[in-house]
């Protein structure tokens, strides 16, 4: 019985090691510049920001969706906006002992 437990423990350990050593993720494709609608109406310049953290270098907390959320936040600033033109993007990061926080800032001219 003890042998079975030892074997299971070893298998679990290998699985965890494999998971850690191959840790990685990618965000979805986020459209940041789209073709403006015909006769686009400008609604003013807007800015959106979103952050995510990579905890202990392997655990992503809201990290993979940060660009998508930043774009959505920017659009939400101008009610009725469907796209952004003249887009700028910047990413800042901050280290805090347990991991890093990445913040994406997207600004652009909101149009509908």
């Amino acid at each position, binding site marked *: 019985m003890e042998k079975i437990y030892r074997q299971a423990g070893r298998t679990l350990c290998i699985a965890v090691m494999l998971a850690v050593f191959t840790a990685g993720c990618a965000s979805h494709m986020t459209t940041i510049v789209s073709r403006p609608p015909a006769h686009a109406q400008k609604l003013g310049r807007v800015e959106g920001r979103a952050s995510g953290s990579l905890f202990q*270098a392997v655990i992503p907390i809201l990290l993979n969706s940060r660009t998508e959320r930043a774009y959505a936040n920017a659009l939400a600033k101008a009610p009725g906006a469907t796209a952004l033109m003249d887009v700028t993007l910047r990413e800042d990061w901050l280290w805090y002992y347990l991991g890093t926080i990445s913040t994406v800032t997207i600004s652009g001219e909101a149009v509908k």
Partner: protein
Amino acid sequence: MNIKTAVMAVLVSAVGFGCMGTQVHFSDAPMEKLDLSRGRTVKARASGLHLFGLIPLGINNRQVRAYEKLKAEAGEDYLTDITIRDGWKWVVIGNKYVTVLTAVAYPDKTKRPAAIATQRTLSEKMDELKKLSESGAITELEYKKARQRLLNEF
């Protein structure tokens, strides 16, 4: 400066250590100039390493580098429908970040290549061939062969 102050300074700076990335500006394509019938997908990527989670190596400007590569890939064409994907991977000595940009590159419709601009349609070629046959410039056999060749090419 006593030791306590020095330790506090180190701790405060360590807690708040960070960097501002380089801002990338995506130029808008002039819609009225795009030849929407000849779009092609272009892709570029740039990566950076966060050494021990603290030291940025190519991290802060990777979006700018990816965009420069994307523009180089597009050449003289205009870029639109730009999408971004950011990935990360743990690599023992830190984290590797990869930014992938994809876009559709459209050529300027006023700069159509001469070959395309002068290209005639199949029906135009057929009409011309028929006229040549009717005028007796080519024989019936030559007409049939040429007609068949045009149809095969089409």
